[in-house]
Structures are given as structure tokens and as C-alpha cells.
């Protein structure tokens, strides 16, 4: 799957979450995603960036523009250096939260994109990869 463009955004503060949303929105607009798809992807990015910030003590987002004619897509990889998730299945469950939020972020993000993968182990940080195709 050829990656045409790549950029990295550091996630270290609330302001960076806003930056993540702006970058993702701009790329999605460049790829002519529909308004609904733009909004879905930006919202998923917002959830995952905040997870990386709040549960993962910060990290970064890798943004990749994918070309696979006739379709194109955006892949976002969120990597954090946090304690990791001990039970990914449980964490994906709606309503499960350890941080006082609604507990819908991870599962919600999955429903907002086409492809979704979590790699995590206790102590090894978390890596969430999402892809949205156009």
C-alpha cells in the first residue's frame, strides 16, 4: 500500500489535540473526503489523541496519505509511551472508563473509521492504527 505523504504531530498538551484535529481535517479536505467522512475521521482522531494524552502520558500521531487506485485513504497511527492497556477487549467496550470520561472513545473511534487496530501490552505503551478510505 503506497504511502504518498507522511507527517508527524507530537501530542503533549490540549493544544496539540486541537492541532491534530486541524491537520487531519486539512488532509481529509485535500483528499476530497465528504463532509461526513471528514467529520468522522476528525472526531476519531480527537478521541485517540486525547487517549494518548490522558492515558498514555503523551505521544505522537503519524499521518499517512495512502494511494491505492482507484481509492485513496488516510491512515493515522497514534503511539504513546503510557502504561499500556492490559485488557484491550474490555477497553473497547462502550461505557468502560478508567479516567472519568464517557468510556466511548475507543469503541466510538472504531465505528467512525474503516480499519482499526490496537496493539498494546502492559508497560509497553499503546499503538492505535486507524484508516479511512475514500
Amino acid at each position, binding site marked *: 500500500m503506497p504511502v504518498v505523504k507522511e507527517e508527524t504531530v507530537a501530542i503533549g498538551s490540549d493544544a496539540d489535540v486541537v492541532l491534530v484535529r486541524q491537520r487531519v481535517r486539512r488532509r481529509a479536505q485535500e483528499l476530497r473526503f465528504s463532509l461526513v467522512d*471528514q467529520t*468522522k475521521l476528525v472526531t476519531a482522531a480527537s478521541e485517540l489523541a486525547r487517549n494518548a494524552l490522558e492515558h498514555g502520558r503523551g505521544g505522537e500521531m503519524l499521518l499517512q496519505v495512502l494511494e491505492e487506485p482507484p481509492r485513496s485513504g488516510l491512515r493515522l497511527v497514534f503511539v504513546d509511551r503510557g502504561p499500556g492497556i492490559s485488557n484491550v477487549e474490555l477497553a473497547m467496550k462502550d461505557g468502560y472508563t478508567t479516567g472519568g470520561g464517557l468510556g466511548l472513545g475507543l469503541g*466510538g473511534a472504531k465505528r467512525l473509521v474503516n480499519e482499526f487496530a490496537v496493539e498494546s501490552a502492559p508497560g509497553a505503551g499503546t499503538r492505535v492504527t486507524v484508516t479511512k478510505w475514500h
Partner: protein
Amino acid sequence: MAVNLIHLPRILERHGEALLADWIREQLQSRSRTGAIKEGELREQCAEFLRLFREATTKGGVDMTRPEYGPLRELLANVSASRGAQGFSPSETAKFVFSFKRPLFMRLREELMRDPVALADETWAATELLDELGLYTTEVYQKAREAVIVRQQEEMLELSTPVVKLWDGILALPMIGTLDSNRTQVVMETLLEKIVETGSEVAIIDITGVPTVDTLVAQHLMKTVAAARLMGAECIISGIRPAIAQTIVHLAIDLGTVVTKANLADAFKAALDKLGVAQLPGR
């Protein structure tokens, strides 16, 4: 290695006038923004710097954190502030200090030609000191900028959360921009105060201008609604665009019993109905 300056104060004393002339010439030549600063002003600043620099190095050695350097630091802060206000970049501002190196080192060389060790020591000490002073102007410059940004953020926070009265008993809160925790706090406080102040029964929260509604924003909204309800006011959330509506569904956010409307006009109509205000037929 910080050496005490032995020769520098003497050189400054003896060649003050010549140094000043050289330095000003140096700055006028290398200046990229010709005419941006008046020669008279520059001369004044340079002369003052030289005078204070001589005093400070005579009494305070090379440690710019000592109280003897107080007046000099103050001068640099003023220079930095006035140049910042005139649109100079931080490096242009720092050059005010750095440009003094060449004339000073030329003098040092002439004076200490016969004593290479002293020349090296003195040059090293002077360059360290001038670097620190130059960086200090940058630091001041940056602090001034940061102060401006903080002030603007605070102003925006207040600007962006107006609560307006639409009707007797109906308030509207048009929200614009990113809803982070700070903003939500301000929004909630202003809304609750306004509800008490006006005795309103309905508050319309319009999120047309909120670009992204994720779980955190939704949670903030629900808390605001719950707080308003405790104060005896019902909330209507309006301005939910189609893309946002679909996103909220995918996120599985339950807005519960909160009344939502597509736009502010519909929300206003619903509020009037709730208050039993008679409306003209056909509207």
C-alpha cells in the same frame, strides 16, 4: 570558565567615545531595516549601554545575575520592548548587543597585543558576558510576546461565551470554536449566573460554531445541561449539523432526555411553545 575582567573596565573608560562611535557605525552599516530606528535614539541607547556596562563590569565582575547589573538589565529590557513594539525580530534585537563585540575586541587586541594570555582570557570572558546579555534581550522579547498571547487567550475566552436574552425567560448561548475544559467551565458559570439573574426557564445552547463534537465535548455539554436543570432551567441544544449527528450516533453518545434541534430558529420556536407564548399562525 569565568575570569574576572581586569582590562576591560579600563579600556571602556579610556576609549569610551571611540568605542561608541565604532559601535554605532557598525550597527548603521549592518542594519537591514534602514531608518527603522532613529540614529539619535540608537546613539542614546548605545551611550547608556556603554555607561552601565562599564559600571557593571567594574563593580560586578562578569556575573550578570548580580545586583550591579540591575540597571543594565533594565536598559536591555527597555530596548527589547521598544524594538519588539517597532516590529524588530528577536535576532535583530539581540544584534544590538552582539554588534558590540567587534569594536570591543578590536580595542582589546590593540591594548593587549603584548600579552596573548590576557587577551585570550579577556576576550573569552567578554564574549561569554555579551552572549548572555544578548540572549537576555531575546528572553525579555519572548516573555513580552507570551504575555500578549495569554492576554489574548483570556480576552477570547470572555468574548466567545456571550449569553444573550432572546425573550422573557429564554436565554441563548451561541458557542463558537473548540470546547476544552477551561471554556466549558467559563460557559457553564456564565450560563448559570445568567439563569439566576434573568430567572429564565429555557436556555438554548447553540453549537453551530463548534467544529468537532467528540465524547469529551458531549460530556461537557451534558454536564452544563444537568447543572442548568438543577437551577430549574431546561436546555435545548441546537445547531447539530448532519455530519455531527452521524458522528454522535457512531460514538454511541446518549444525549438522553435533552431536547435537540437542527437550528436556532427551531429551538427558539420550541422554547416559545414551552413557555406558552402564542405565535402567529403559519409560522
